[in-house]
């Protein structure tokens, strides 16, 4: 396959219409992007952004409409065609082989390095170095994917796409998994890159849309509701256009609760997958009725902490006192029964069984409870009713309750997990990146729910990389760095600056 090296000076999608059963996913959409431009494609989950980009990448065929590159009509029958034309897409779910190295992953698609009997890894390595230098994207070619944080994996995806010769980038929610620092870096990076290529990026986050894009197109229910130049509009204007109503993420404005300590972690030591200590003598106490935000750059032990508390990772030493019982190294089942709720980081593979139906997933932790089970036999009526009720209460958008949970959108999967965890009436909740990748409407909903159960006296450990989320919701903020709690701040003392410094590893912010 010979790649054309011509620059893409203009890309135009005209009157694109795509129907799925019962849904008009794209309704006569027209958009245009010129050389060196960054177009932000904005809209809630289910607005049709990803469908539109999948059409552009040749994954779907439009029912009507056409695509023009540099004024010539093109037909992409598969992603390979789109790719040959110079389009490259970084998906929200990274397409990387976990047990291969960065180099091997990139070599997978790097056809030029393939000959019938030999794979020229040296050539791929050179290409990675070249791209890394050109765009300032640093990756370790010999690291295994499973060893990398989500942010690092995304960088690998970017490098991969660029290595393979993309001259037009489509990024599906590129910052949804990144730390604030990484996000800032990425924005600078993409700005620099835009002198070389055009970029379409899908986002929910209005601040970065504002910071990064030249033009903005807002989709709602599959149709363009607004397009214009970014600098002419404020983030709140854009938010209103996106959802159709004014959105304010809820704030935790109530006085600090006077709860008693319910989760008391003492000198906790836990190993990471790679065998070193991810948590070193970590101490943290959380009381009932308070939200403690755990801020930190990803990969500093957040995942290990959440897994250790939930019995999913071995505790080397230390105690986890939960309502007076040491739950360190107890089974996940025991900890669930003790009243622990957990919204895990990996919602698609851990939080749900993807091939199970919506209603089955809603009883994942309760199959043996009398509510859903009668002498081991499942009570189908109760299960159906539970699902119908939760579907309404938590606004889970799905055609029915028997659909495979894995086929729902990210926001709806998160609502399924939230619905299950909250409806179980836990005594404590650990929420890991609860709104990562969700649109404003869904994020608002989830934050309201968290504040609601806080009011009921449930303690919450909120692990997040989004400082805004932490500042909005937390009563206290703990900052984690290299497996230890740097400092615990009261809400009034926490701000972006003080947290940013602590997250970077500086212990006493007075010295800066």
């Amino acid at each position, binding site marked *: 396959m010979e790649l054309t090296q011509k620059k893409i000076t203009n890309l135009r999608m005209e009157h694109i219409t795509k129907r799925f*059963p019962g849904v008009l996913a794209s309704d006569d959409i027209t958009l245009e992007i010129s050389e060196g431009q960054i177009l932000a494609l904005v809209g809630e989950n289910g607005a049709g952004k990803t469908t539109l980009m999948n059409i552009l990448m040749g*994954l*779907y*065929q439009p029912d009507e409409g056409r695509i023009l590159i540099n004024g010539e009509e093109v037909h992409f029958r598969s992603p390979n065609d789109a790719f040959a034309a110079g389009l490259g897409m970084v998906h929200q779910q990274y397409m990387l082989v976990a047990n291969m190295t960065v180099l091997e992953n990139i070599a997978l698609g790097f056809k030029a390095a393939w000959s019938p009997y030999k794979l020229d890894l040296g050539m791929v390595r050179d290409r990675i170095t070249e791209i890394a230098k050109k765009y300032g994207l640093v990756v370790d070619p010999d690291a295994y994917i499973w060893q990398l944080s989500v942010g690092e994996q995304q960088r690998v995806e970017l490098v991969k796409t660029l290595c393979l010769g993309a001259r037009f980038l489509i990024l599906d929610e590129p910052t949804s998994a990144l730390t604030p620092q990484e996000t800032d870096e990425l924005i600078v990076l993409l700005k620099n890159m835009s002198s070389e290529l055009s970029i379409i990026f899908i986002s929910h986050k209005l601040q970065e849309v504002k910071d990064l894009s030249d033009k903005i197109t807002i989709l709602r229910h599959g149709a363009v509701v607004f397009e214009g130049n970014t600098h002419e509009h404020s983030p709140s204007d854009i938010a209103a256009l996106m959802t159709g109503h004014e959105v304010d993420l809820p704030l935790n404005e109530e006085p600090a609760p006077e709860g008693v300590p319910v989760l008391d972690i003492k000198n906790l030591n836990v190993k990471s997958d790679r065998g070193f200590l991810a948590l070193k003598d970590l101490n943290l106490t959380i009381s009932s009725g308070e939200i403690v935000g755990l801020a930190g750059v990803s990969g500093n032990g957040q995942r290990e902490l959440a897994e250790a508390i*939930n019995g*999913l990772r071995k505790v080397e030493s230390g105690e986890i006192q939960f309502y007076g019982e040491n739950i360190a190294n107890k*089974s*996940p*089942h025991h*900890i*669930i*029964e003790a009243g622990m709720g*957990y919204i*895990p980081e*990996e919602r698609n*593979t*851990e*939080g*749900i*069984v*993807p*091939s*199970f139906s919506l209603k*089955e997933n809603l*009883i*994942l*932790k309760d*199959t*043996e409870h009398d509510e*859903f*089970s009668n002498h*081991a*036999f*499942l009570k189908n009526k109760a299960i159906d009713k539970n699902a119908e009720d939760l579907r309404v209460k938590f606004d889970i958008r799905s055609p029915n309750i028997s659909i495979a949970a894995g086929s729902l959108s990210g926001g709806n999967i998160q609502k399924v997990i939230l619905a299950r965890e909250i409806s179980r009436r836990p005594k404590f909740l650990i929420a890991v990146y609860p709104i990562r990748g969700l649109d404003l409407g869904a994020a608002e909903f989830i934050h309201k729910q968290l504040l609601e159960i806080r009011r009921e006296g449930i303690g919450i450990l909120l692990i997040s990389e989004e400082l805004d989320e932490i500042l909005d919701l937390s009563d206290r903020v703990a900052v984690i760095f290299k497996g230890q709690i740097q400092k615990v701040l009261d809400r009034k003392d926490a701000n972006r600056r003080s947290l940013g410094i602590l997250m970077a590893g500086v212990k006493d912010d007075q010295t800066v």
Partner: protein
Amino acid sequence: MTKQFRVLYKVTIIILAILAAMLIGSIILMTIGADVFKTYRVILFEPLKTTLQLTEVLIRAIPLTIIALGISVAYRSGIINIGAEGQMAMGILGTTAVALAFPELPKPILLPMAILAGAMAGGVWGFIPGILRAKLQVSELLSTVMLNYIAAQIYTFMLRGPFLDPAELTMGSGTPQSMRLSRGIWLDRFLKGTRLHTGIFFALFLALLIYLLLWKTNYGYKMRAAGASARAARYGGISVTWYLVIAMVISGAFAGMAGAIEIAGVHRRAIEGITGGYGFSGIVVALFGGLHPAGIIPASFFFGLLIVGADMTQRMVGVPANMVNVLQGVIILVIVATKMILADPYLMERVWRKYQGIGKKHVEVEA
């Protein structure tokens, strides 16, 4: 995409797969110089012509069904059991031991005891790879295959030693088989002039049992969750390793019961070579039947048909019965390929577009 289209699409793919398998089979048949059409006709239709032949097909389908049910439990729980052959052999030994030890017991006591002994012996043989996988991460592919060899040797040893029919010793013919087992474990042959035995109802009962277990109880829910996504199951408080072990025990027990039913219904004594590849065919039946009892029953009938048909081709057209093994191999490959095709949504999407194109033209013509 309409629902009718999805069904039509899947049925078409399956029909095409069957045709593909037959086509490949005919090429192989042609290479050995056989009459292709006649061979297929004999395999597929000849066994259905007389009641006697039909009952022979059903007799083969009984152990296949029971074994495949057990294998589907293991598969659904995320562990692959290739050890049914050995588990079946152990089940036969268990049943034989009980029948030889208590020949005087009345049937209502002895028969359940003997079947239970077969189930337990097979269950133990399934437990070993299960616990090895759960505790030491030993691949079940390795351990089940190895245990097949061990079981085969134990089986041979028992039949030539402790269980050997005393009559063989006195006669001196030395055929390695046990003595005829007590009437107390004989399953009734309810159709005059045939060997069809009540084991068939037992097999159907077990199929219902597995359906209820997997889809209607919380144990089945947990097993399927552990198999579908071990990570999510663990997160949900399900002890994945524990259910792996349970699933292997059930799987082994079913293979053991298949052995018990086979000797109680057909042979009425333990003979060398009884297992005859049922343990391996059971895997194919389980997969062919979509790992679901409702699919396994017709699938085992189909494979029973192949086995009986193979005997008949040998007699009627001179094609060796081993050919059926070749055909089985072809079928496995085609199933795997078909599954991948059925799981490809983009292909379905593309066919749907073509189909719509045809549909539109069709409407225009009609208009």
